[in-house]
């Protein structure tokens, strides 16, 4: 079974600070997704990256897929309280049909 480890597990920072969340595996994935989940709700997709080395930016969020497609990072610039939530990475594996293996999650709290 492929595993995705996220670090750190918990992160509490002040508004305006920068942060990076990591998603690592020993396995190769066909794609990598990042989700954000708020309390009492389901996860919501932020981005999908599919090519090794790919970088995508969404406003203050920068996502990178590792060259070997085994790892990914999420960087947030100038964090805001609205960024607070649980961030989940999910690796896509192709075993005939695609299924997604979810990481263990990073819980972020941004203090005003």
């Amino acid at each position: 079974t492929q595993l995705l480890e996220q670090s750190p597990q918990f992160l509490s920072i002040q508004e305006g600070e920068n942060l990076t969340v990591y998603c690592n595996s020993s396995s190769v994935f066909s794609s990598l997704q990042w989700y954000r989940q708020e309390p009492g709700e389901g996860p919501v997709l932020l981005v999908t990256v599919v090519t090794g080395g790919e970088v995508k930016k969404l406003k203050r969020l920068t996502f990178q897929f590792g060259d070997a497609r085994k790892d990914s990072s999420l960087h947030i610039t100038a964090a805001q309280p609205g960024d607070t939530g649980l961030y989940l990475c999910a690796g896509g594996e192709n075993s005939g049909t695609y299924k997604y293996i979810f990481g263990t999650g990073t819980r972020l709290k941004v203090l005003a």
Partner: protein
Amino acid sequence: DAGITQSPRHKVTETGTPVTLRCHQTENHRYMYWYRQDPGHGLRLIHYSYGVKDTDKGEVSDGYSVSRSKTEDFLLTLESATSSQTSVYFCAISESMTRGRETQYFGPGTRLLVL
């Protein structure tokens, strides 16, 4: 927001009793999934469906069964609930499952407590 509802949203039951959770979608998406979310484990796939009456197992399917008699409904049944099945259950849908780039849309979750 994708039209996905889950019922019930909260349930408390006793060990050994059967429990059925319902997922209903209005998007006419072909693929539907059931996940459970537990601290330290992220989301784990229980079962998924790729069409009416077509289902397959995920990584944590023991103790669970599913049924899909209509495109819009996907039921998850715990035949005899155990305390280890206390969790938050999420339903998700997607249009396809073949390119590795699909968006999964998640429902609001069902919080299940087995005493």
